[in-house]
């Protein structure tokens, strides 16, 4: 691995400040600075698939816009494949793919096939490469029936698959996905994820994935970055999030009969009681075994199950702590 590969995406103290003007009287305007991205730094090695998550307005899209070169950072240093995106946008554009869940890169009035023909010319994709890539996309994304259909007649899930194919025909080295599964049904989501996994594994495409659907992240990314208020709050493995987020697992016990809330179990507290069923929360990092034996020793236990912490809750908690 070369130095370039170890830091394929390089972000050093990058900032983006927007100036917002607001009416403050009949004529007077107040200028206010909004720091959308407030000094973030990270590195992504070539071939890694990273989740980039955060609440609305956290600065995710702004970061992606800077990485793709359509927004110029107000400060800091930014390189993708050694290129300064804002200074050399067109050169970088040939090496990257972008997919927006909420927008389409396809041409509304044209059949999918014609859109791809334009993409081919746009990226000057050699004929054989184009054929192989299109075939693969058509097969894996199930597009065969859709190629002759104008984009405006496609369903959201079909259009999304069409968009993902369009972003990959030119073998991009890096792929930015902004909410690629938004609005899709379970089957389409699974198909899209499977395809992305395959592209990443086979082509070594570096992927930065922004999403609100944490299942996307759980299934695709080993590394996740959490951003809020324009800062990186967490950067590491998914498991690590639980420790950082002080998240809890839940032991659900069914007792023989309705009893007052369970007490006296070290390291656990009862959070909910519903008839004979009770919920005990304990740290995600602790083992459930001693807890189970302690409950079984003191209470008439019929059945039990352990619930893993919901990553969504973990992150919600993280945001809340930050805000508070």
């Amino acid at each position, binding site marked *: 691995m070369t130095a370039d590969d170890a830091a394929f995406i390089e972000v050093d103290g990058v900032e983006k400040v*927007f100036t917002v003007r607001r009416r403050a009287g009949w004529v007077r305007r107040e200028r206010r600075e909004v720091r959308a991205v407030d000094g973030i730094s990270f590195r992504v090695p070539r071939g890694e698939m990273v989740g980039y998550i955060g609440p609305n307005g956290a600065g995710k*899209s702004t970061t992606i*816009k800077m990485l793709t070169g359509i927004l110029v950072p107000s400060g800091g240093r930014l390189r993708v494949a050694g290129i300064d995106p804002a200074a050399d946008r067109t050169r970088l554009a040939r090496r990257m793919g972008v997919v927006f869940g909420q927008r389409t890169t396809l041409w509304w009035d044209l059949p999918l096939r014609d859109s791809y023909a*334009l993409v081919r*010319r746009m990226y000057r994709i050699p004929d054989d490469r184009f054929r192989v890539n299109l075939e693969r996309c058509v097969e894996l994304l199930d597009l065969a029936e859709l190629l002759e259909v104008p984009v405006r007649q496609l369903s959201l899930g079909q259009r999304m698959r069409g968009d993902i194919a369009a972003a990959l025909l030119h073998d991009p080295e890096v792929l930015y996905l902004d909410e690629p599964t938004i609005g899709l049904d379970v089957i389409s989501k699974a198909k899209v994820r499977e395809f992305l996994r395959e592209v990443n594994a086979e082509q070594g495409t570096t992927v930065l994935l922004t999403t609100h659907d944490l299942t996307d992240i759980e299934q695709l990314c080993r590394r996740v970055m959490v951003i809020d208020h324009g800062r990186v709050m967490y950067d590491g493995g998914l498991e690590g999030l639980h420790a950082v987020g002080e998240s809890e697992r839940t032991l659900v016990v069914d007792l023989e009969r309705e009893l007052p809330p369970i007490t006296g179990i070290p390291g656990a507290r009862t959070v909910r009681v519903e008839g004979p069923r009770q919920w005990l929360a304990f740290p995600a990092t602790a083992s459930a075994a001693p807890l189970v034996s302690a409950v079984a020793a003191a209470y008439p236990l019929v059945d039990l199950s352990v619930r893993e912490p919901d990553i969504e809750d973990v992150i919600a908690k993280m945001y809340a702590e930050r805000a508070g």
Partner: protein
Amino acid sequence: MRLHMAVMASGFRRYATYWAATAAGVFTNTVFGFIVAYTYIALWDQRPQLGGYDLAQAVTFVWLGQALLAASALLGGGFHEELQERIRSGDVAIDLYRPVDLQLWWLAGDLGRAAFHLLGRGIVPLLVGSLVFELTLPASPLTWLYFLTAVALGVLVSFAIRYLVALSAFWLLDGTGLNMISLVLSLFFSGMILPLNVFPGALGDLAAVLPWSAILQIPADVLLGEHQGTDLVTAFAFQAGWALALLAAGRALQSVATRKVVVQGG
């Protein structure tokens, strides 16, 4: 270059898809052709040789205006409302992610559209006009070739103006006002309402040097044989000059827009 040919072809096909709209447009152009032609006939009856045109030339001018209305986007239309909408909604970000120049991309698409409109919306009204009225149409194929050259240069000027108007959306979130002003200027100073040589004195002199005259007045005069020899070269040079100047202005504005202005929304 091959990309832009492909974009042009897709622009052509895109408009060719909506044949009902084309038929409606042809019908409208033809009806308006009749209305305006009879108005001109009444006017030239009172003032023969007005602006140096005889009656047949004046009526020819009317039908040329209807034939070029869609192709040269004299009433606006074409791409610029679409580009404004893309800027307003933030979809323009997608255009910027591509390894292509924004202006050339839209220009290629608009030329494809114009080519379609010239054929689809131009031929029938002119044909109907020539069947019903006595028109001054040239016999020489060379004159027709000159005319098509002038039309092509006029479309370039028209595109360049509309591109500038479209880019204003980066600053003005609502482009309606500017579009309206642009439409009025285009109608008035292209000669669509009245041929520019009818305009009196200083107003006529002014209208003749403004870029809009390159869109309809000059192509019409080329077809009517008003420009010959060096005069023809001067007319082409005038059109090309405005096209280059306005396209360059569009480039400059585009680089300011993409560098300075925040793309709306995420």
